[in-house]
């Protein structure tokens, strides 16, 4: 079971998608139910990971490692550790939720929609559980297409532009990453004489400094775009605004995490010296992102693009916390990935609910919704507060740890980042005020019906998580602690080793260095 579980979790959605292909387009209800049940079962099975996770070890767990393309050294190598565990769970949960959330909002081509979502889920899960560079890249790209369809087919008016922009931006980074992966692969071959993509072995690979920088740039670019970090963020508002609710939820909830996760899993441990070199630049970008995202979010007229820009700011937090490379910052950063997935996912769900009723997302079209939809308002309020990091909610724990970690790295960074939380309150509350408060003067708003049971069920798990992580984050933090610690140790050790490059412990290192640097 332990060996198969990840395969099951990863490919169960695809299996469900295949089943869907056999259903006729007219059987909408059956399609929805099948899709939801698949996603739900996937989620339930994935909780097995949580309950059987050994929190006291940094080793990869539930590992499966089978040769796949032997001649290229590609292995089917999956596994999770404390860093990826929760992202996997987040993915399975959010997919199930987003399917449920699209129950009535998607009427056209339901089958395609559900198939896209499920395949997307496989892609995302694959990214988080792959321990093989090749496999990782494949999943990384695989998830692009269903997302492209989700935006392009079921999106808003400007969906095609947004979809293409999304794909082109992401591809730009990932193609460069592909080159870097291949280069890394060649370096590894020169060093050891074996063609292999095994990720874990790359952690031990001592990559010459010159090569590290280039490879780092290529990898980092792919991830930065995905995160997205200033100034590569402009695809995000478009994609978010145009995407259907489920698409936005997945996009914000999971896809963006792939960038930060990639940083954590690939960029930092593989290229620690390059990371050192570029860290200040990246940190500045992250800080700009925090402030910039918040400022621009403030003046948005569309709720979705406001949330999109807030994502830029929030992901800036995640990045800066990661750069601290200390226990607190990293744990905060990982936790904040979850938090952002939960909170922003919930925000998009909420925006989607009201969009379904009003078919507008412009802030000025609302006002006074509090009165007509009190339950909705309460959910909205909680999520808003979570998004601005109010203590007691998940956002606080993550942000506080991040800021604390960042403070340990550089006080100025911390001060700027902390200023970001002021701005977060400004734009979120202002938005909330304009949407929910005031007199309900527009006749179309007065007739709004409060959320129904299904919608409550959609939001409830996220609300529970908001408070769970906010009030008792210990299980999360403890589970990720050994892996994070290991990551830090490994990275530091490798960095130290390479800084003393003059005394290598193996001859080939010098050889590779000169080869690469010519």
């Amino acid at each position, binding site marked *: 079971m332990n060996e198969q579980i990840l395969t099951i979790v990863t490919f169960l959605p695809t299996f469900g998608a295949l089943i869907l292909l056999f259903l006729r387009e007219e059987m909408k209800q059956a399609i929805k139910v099948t899709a939801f049940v698949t996603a739900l079962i996937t989620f339930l099975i994935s909780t097995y990971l949580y309950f059987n996770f050994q929190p006291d070890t940094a080793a990869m767990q539930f590992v499966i490692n089978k040769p796949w393309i032997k001649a290229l050294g590609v292995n089917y190598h999956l596994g999770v550790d404390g860093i990826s565990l929760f992202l996997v769970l987040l993915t399975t949960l959010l997919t199930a939720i987003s399917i449920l959330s699209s129950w009535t909002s998607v009427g056209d081509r339901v089958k395609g929609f559900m198939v896209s979502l499920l395949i997307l889920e496989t892609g995302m899960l694959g990214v988080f559980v792959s321990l093989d560079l090749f496999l990782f890249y494949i999943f990384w790209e695989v998830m692009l297409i269903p997302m492209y369809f989700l935006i392009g087919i079921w999106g808003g008016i400007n969906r095609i532009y947004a979809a293409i*922009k999304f794909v082109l*931006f992401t591809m730009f980074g990932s193609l460069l990453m592909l080159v870097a992966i291949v280069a890394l692969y060649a370096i590894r071959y020169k060093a050891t004489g074996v063609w292999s993509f095994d990720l874990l072995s790359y952690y031990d690979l001592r990559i010459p400094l010159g090569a590290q920088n280039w490879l780092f740039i290529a990898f980092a670019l792919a991830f930065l775009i995905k995160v997205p970090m200033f*100034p590569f*963020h*402009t695809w995000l*508002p478009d994609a978010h605004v145009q995407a259907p609710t489920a698409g936005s939820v997945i996009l914000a909830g999971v896809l963006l995490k792939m960038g930060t996760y990639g940083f954590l899993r690939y960029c930092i441990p593989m290229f620690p010296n390059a990371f050192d070199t570029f860290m200040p630049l990246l940190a500045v970008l992250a800080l700009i992102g925090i402030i*910039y995202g918040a*400022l*621009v979010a*403030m*003046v*948005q007229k569309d709720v979705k693009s406001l949330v999109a820009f807030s994502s830029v700011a929030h992901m800036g937090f995640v990045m800066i916390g990661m750069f601290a490379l*200390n*226990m*607190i910052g990293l*744990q*905060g950063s990982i936790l904040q990935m979850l938090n952002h997935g939960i909170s922003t996912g919930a925000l998009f769900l909420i925006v989607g609910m009201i969009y379904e009723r009003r078919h507008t997302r412009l802030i000025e079209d609302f006002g*006074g919704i*509090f*009165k007509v939809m009190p339950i909705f308002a309460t959910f909205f309020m909680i999520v808003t*507060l979570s998004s601005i990091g*109010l*203590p*007691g909610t998940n956002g*606080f*724990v993550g942000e*506080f*740890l991040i*800021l*604390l970690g960042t*403070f*340990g790295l550089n*006080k100025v960074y*911390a*001060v700027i980042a*902390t*200023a970001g*939380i*002021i701005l977060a*309150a*400004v734009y979120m*509350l*202002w938005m909330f*005020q304009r949407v*929910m*408060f*005031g*007199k*309900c003067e527009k006749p179309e708003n007065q007739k709004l019906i409060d959320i129904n049971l299904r919608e409550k069920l959609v939001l409830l798990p996220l609300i529970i998580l908001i408070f769970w992580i906010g*009030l*008792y*984050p*210990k299980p999360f*933090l*403890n589970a990720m*602690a050994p892996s994070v*610690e290991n990551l830090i140790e490994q990275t530091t050790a490798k960095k130290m080793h390479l800084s003393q490059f003059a005394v290598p412990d193996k001859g080939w290192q010098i050889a590779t260095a000169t080869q690469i640097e010519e």
Partner: protein
Amino acid sequence: MELIWLIPLVPLAGFLLNGLLGKSFSKPVINTIACGSVAVSFLLSLNAFFGLLRLAPESRSVEYILFSWIPSGSFNADVGFLLDPLSAVMILVVSGVGLLIHIYSVGYMAHDEGYSRFFTYLNLFMASMLILVLANNFVLMYVGWEGVGLCSYLLIGFWYEKRSATDAGKKAFIVNRIGDFGFALGIMLLFWTIGSVHFSTVFDLAPQQLAYGGGIVTAATLLLFLGAVGKSAQVPLYVWLPDAMEGPTPVSALIHAATMVTAGVYMVARCNVLYMMAPTTLLVVAIVGMFTAFYAATIGLFQNDIKRVLAYSTISQLGYMFVACGVAAFGAGIFHLMTHAFFKALLFLGAGSVIHAMSGEQDMRRMGGLKSKLPVTYTTMLIATLAISGIPLFSGFFSKDEILWQAFSSPFGSPLLWVVGLLTAGLTAFYMFRLIYLTFFGQRRYDDHVASHLRESPKVMTVPLMILAVLSVIGGYVGLPKALLGGAWFEHFLHPVFAKGAEIGKLAEGAGESHATEYALMLAAVAFVVVMIFTAKRYYLDRAKNSEQFEHGFGGLYKLVYNKYFIDELYDKIIVNPLVKGSNLLWQKFDVLIIDGFFNGAAWLAGQWAISMRKLQTGMVRSYAFVFLGGAIFVIGYLILSR
């Protein structure tokens, strides 16, 4: 005392109960849950207080850790509570005054649509405030700190259909966040220098690990003080408090007078060890406090909104408390905090009673002569006014006098502080009596419609008023100074908390000037206050018709003060507007034009290139052959030339 964790949790339970199910409860159930939970808290607080009294003074510090909350690497924040004299006083004040206000609200909010919502928020506030004062570490305190901020936001904007109310709520939250920004950074700085966020550890280790008056401790205390400035509405972050009066009056009484706004003072007192290590910060605290006290008092002079007067008065009084802290007289600060809680809550509730009776009218120019119509309200409010003005025998006299005396005599004090304090006290007396005269005396200035509804508030509202009135009188006697033959019992009780700080600041207890000086100063103060009261009487009662003339007689000064020094407008102009405009610029110009423009431009360029390249594809074989030939020439030529 093992039950102290229940003190915040009971109101929290009340919050959950009302919050989740309040819709389906009837009003009595709701208020029973709400008031009941606070009553339980109050009883538990009393129990804790007396439990504490039974202990020896040195061991009056009990910690109870519920669970480890955020463990991450070397960082750990518990959900843990600390009961010591300081927090004991605070929980008593908070739960006590809170209980009274809860009860009062039952009457005040009886006809409001959002009845259950109101009590839900109120209970949440109680929980947060109690967490704030009971926390045993900075982070948990921060939880309460932001929690009360949230409740303040929710309650100010309680009438959410009113634009000004929601604006005010948002303003309160954001301005508080600015303070929290400092507070959070202060916590971080402490963590990274001392390695812990637990009060006991930090205060134990700080004197050993940090240099006295060093940069770190100064920075940390200043950052923490920024938090206090925000929360306790000191200059320059006071702007939210007057606006906060948009909320229901019980809220103003509870949150914006008695409890939440004093959190800053509490926090500074709690961190007295750190503050004593940073004399520079103390000086800053004292100056900010004194400036705020005087500044707010001047604004209060000519306000016409009854609640706004009280709001500025609150700011001013909070300034006093900070002065106390700034001169290292934390005990005096807390003492004033407590008495202020009583009489200011009373004033607000009284004002609420007036407003209630006046069908929501808040402008004092449309009141007058209410004395006979609202006897209980009048009496109790008068008592509170006397207390706040510092009339001897009332509680305010003792606490305010203690602060003035400390400001004069403490090693950190100065006569200048005393002088300004004295002026402020006089101004306070002036505007408070102006309020009394305008409201309760003189001729009626309201219309018949109001008159027809005018009657004294129900018992559920007046009883809390009376209780508070009693407290406003006797509250001062627990801290009767030695000069007045008291035992300064209050300060003794608190002493263990401040002992360490005192040690660091080398404060000898009871040192300083002789009683003679103290008497002289006291007398001067009282005299000045009385003069100011009579001035008020002269212009607002005796010559009530000319009062406007009197006010306008100050010319530009009046305008300045009446418009609150145009600070809101200034903030709008230099901060808010540029921010919005700049952000719009960033979005429209930078995001859309530059970044997107760059990428779209690249795409456009490729497209243009394609268009112009297409021209080459003429469809004519000869031109194809021509290009082919060109290529051939290039290939051969290249090889020849590079041979």
